[in-house]
């Protein structure tokens, strides 16, 4: 009867929820807090590059949560849920972390208000309809690609958060050390003598 070779086991993963929260706030921050600095910095640069480059392609007017529930709410959803339903892009953009929080701030305090607020001005505020129409009329597909970049950045950060919480999907197997291997054999040799 053939004997199965002993399986190489990887140690169980202990979930690091704090690192996950940090990686939500700032992409890669959780990995940096765990000592995986290179990977953390790589996530930070890559996710923010995608997100802000996407905003640039969209003339900095494609990350926002509009207040349109009063006009369009076919499913009679709660107000904020209806607004997200009307602009589902924000459900993806939100996961990029603090970089999308200005949109939440603007949504809560400057709905349909064209006056510049303190600190962040009109950054990530719902553009007025005239401006949106002008951008759509005068732009090309690049503007659409812009919000795709920002949504992909947010969705990719969900995977980065998971990496911070539970580690990479494929972990390196833990090989038994030579000392551990040698001990039983040495013991047997000693016993034989």
């Amino acid at each position, binding site marked *: 009867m053939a004997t199965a070779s002993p399986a190489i086991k990887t140690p169980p993963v202990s979930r690091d929820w704090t690192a996950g929260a940090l990686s939500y706030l700032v992409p890669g921050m959780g990995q940096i807090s765990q000592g*995986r600095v290179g*990977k953390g910095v790589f996530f930070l640069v890559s996710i923010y590059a995608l997100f802000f*480059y996407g905003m640039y392609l969209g003339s900095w007017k494609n990350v926002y949560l509009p207040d349109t529930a009063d006009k369009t709410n076919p499913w009679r959803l709660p107000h904020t849920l209806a607004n997200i339903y009307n602009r589902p892009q924000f459900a993806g953009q939100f996961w990029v972390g603090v970089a999308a929080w200005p949109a939440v701030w603007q949504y809560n305090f400057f709905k349909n208000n064209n006056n510049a607020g303190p600190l962040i001005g009109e950054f990530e505020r719902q553009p007025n309809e005239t401006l949106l129409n002008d951008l759509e009329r005068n732009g090309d597909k690049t503007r659409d690609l812009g919000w795709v970049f920002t949504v992909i950045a947010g969705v990719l950060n969900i*995977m980065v958060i998971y*990496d911070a919480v539970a580690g*990479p999907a494929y972990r390196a197997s833990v090989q038994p050390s030579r000392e551990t291997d040698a001990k039983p054999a040495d013991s047997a040799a000693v016993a034989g003598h």
Partner: protein
Amino acid sequence: MPSPLIVPLLPATDWVAAPLFAQIGPAHLPFYWHLPLLVVLVSLVYSATRHDQWSAIFREAFRWGLRLTAFLVSIVLVLWIVARFFIGP
């Protein structure tokens, strides 16, 4: 004459005669310049969530980069075939 595959990376005056991309129009050329950045970053970040060793990350990212590129190119081909043979003049 350059290969049709590298034609979209050249200035508009050089590739305007290429049949595959002629219907897209030079005005939309910049749109495609943004896609390599997307493919590279998505491949690298996704692969970095799968592995911890940089060598494994780069190997996996290369494979995903090829898959994504093939996927995007296949969409271009399908759209071109539809435009050329079904709704073209």
